[in-house]
């Protein structure tokens, strides 16, 4: 089976499974975030739950691995695809009628990645990581009021705008990625393609609007 993982179709299968996994994660993450719109206590409680629940604790490294795999294969695929064109490239850029996102998945992914780093640094490092360190008996500064942290950060318009850029990059990534993942897994046909595209668009909007609601809320209220 070793060569299986390196075949073009398998690489895409891995890409699609990791992508789908990340899409599920986004839903859970969004669910947790949205509670901040309702009350400080609720949000802090959810955060506490997230920090201590065993399942979540097990899932964190899995999630990290998911990202790592997705990113590693993104690099591999993008590199191979670039090479496949050959040395001499077209003088006139492709004018075929294709969706913009689909041609720019890597760039979109990199934007997402850039934000991810920022995000981990600003939130995760000060929230969940601290609890984890604490649990492991190391020096830690557990955060008992993450709500306030969020509030402060998003009160900064620059930060909020950056966050919004990320969300819309993600939106593009997802409008293509959603149905594309099904296609890569072989779960598509002429009848299902339009349905999956609708579902993907709905999903992308829910995620994007959901995540946008938080900085906007904190910026204006």
């Amino acid at each position, binding site marked *: 089976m070793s060569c299986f993982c390196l075949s073009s179709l398998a690489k895409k299968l891995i890409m699609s499974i990791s992508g789908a996994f990340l899409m599920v994660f986004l839903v859970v993450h969004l669910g947790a975030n949205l509670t901040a719109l309702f009350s400080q206590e609720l949000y802090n409680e959810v955060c506490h739950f997230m920090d201590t629940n065993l399942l979540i604790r097990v899932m964190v490294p899995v999630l990290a691995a998911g990202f790592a795999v997705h990113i590693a294969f993104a690099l591999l695929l993008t590199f191979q*695809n670039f090479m496949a064109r050959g040395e001499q490239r077209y003088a006139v850029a492709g004018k075929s009628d294709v969706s913009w996102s689909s041609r720019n998945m890597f760039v979109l992914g990199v934007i997402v990645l850039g934000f991810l780093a920022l995000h981990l640094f600003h939130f995760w490092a000060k929230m969940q990581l601290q609890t984890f360190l604490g649990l492991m008996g190391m020096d830690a500064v557990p955060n008992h009021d993450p709500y306030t942290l969020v509030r402060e950060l998003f009160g900064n318009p620059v930060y909020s705008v950056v966050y919004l850029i990320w969300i819309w990059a993600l939106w593009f990534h997802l409008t293509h990625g959603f149905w594309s993942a099904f296609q890569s897994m072989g779960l598509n046909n002429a009848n299902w393609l339009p349905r999956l595209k609708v579902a993907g668009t709905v999903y992308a909007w829910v995620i994007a609007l959901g995540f946008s609601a938080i900085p906007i809320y904190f910026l204006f209220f």
Partner: protein
Amino acid sequence: MIQNMEKKGLNLTLKIWRQENARSKGSFETYQVQDISPDCSFLEMLDQLNEKLVDKFEKPVCFDHDCREGICGMCSLYINGRPHGNDSGITTCQLHMRHFKDGETIWIEPWRSRAFPVIKDLVVDRTALDKIIQEGGYVSVNTGGTPDGNALPIRKENADLAMDAAACIGCGACVAACKNASAMLFVSAKVSQLALLPQGRVEARERVTRMVSKMDELGFGNCTNTRACEAECPKEIKISNIARMNREFFVARLQD
């Protein structure tokens, strides 16, 4: 409709990729053609340019072509950023000059892919596609001794879907259009055709495994599902074939 009015000839500037042979470096040359009838085909326009070049003792522009009716798959050409030019569901030989405006500049490039090296000017080597078919794009029956044609009824829907896929002319426009120079549409069309028919099911697993690994080996890219292949395929072959190939491949490999 009946053309009553005088048709005006087109004057065009052509930027054409010229390359002596596979080893040499190529570049774009500029040519002018005058008074091209809007009713003539793109290749007939190039014929006229070539006659002029021969007149001047210059080497004519080489391009592949044969049937000139959109079925042999021999003509190629990447015209103004699109394989087979700016019209859908056709090959270059079926592209007519009425799709161009007087005074326009037209860029003509060969198919670009690592798996399709340029042989000369606009001519590329597409034998990679043959090699993929040789890996399993067939049903292993010898001549003779086959059952009656009607012994095995086939659902019309499947026969029609198989025909849709079988319509592929092997021109390579899918590879040329794809930003990844991927041959998925081509390979999946053959895999699908045979997977949909009971005759082809017998070897379906070996076929898909071997054809995909050959495709990878020859240096074609992966699929990002941009659907450029589908948009440019002169026979309008659908990416649902790629999904079917993916299914076939995973199931085949799971059973190994």
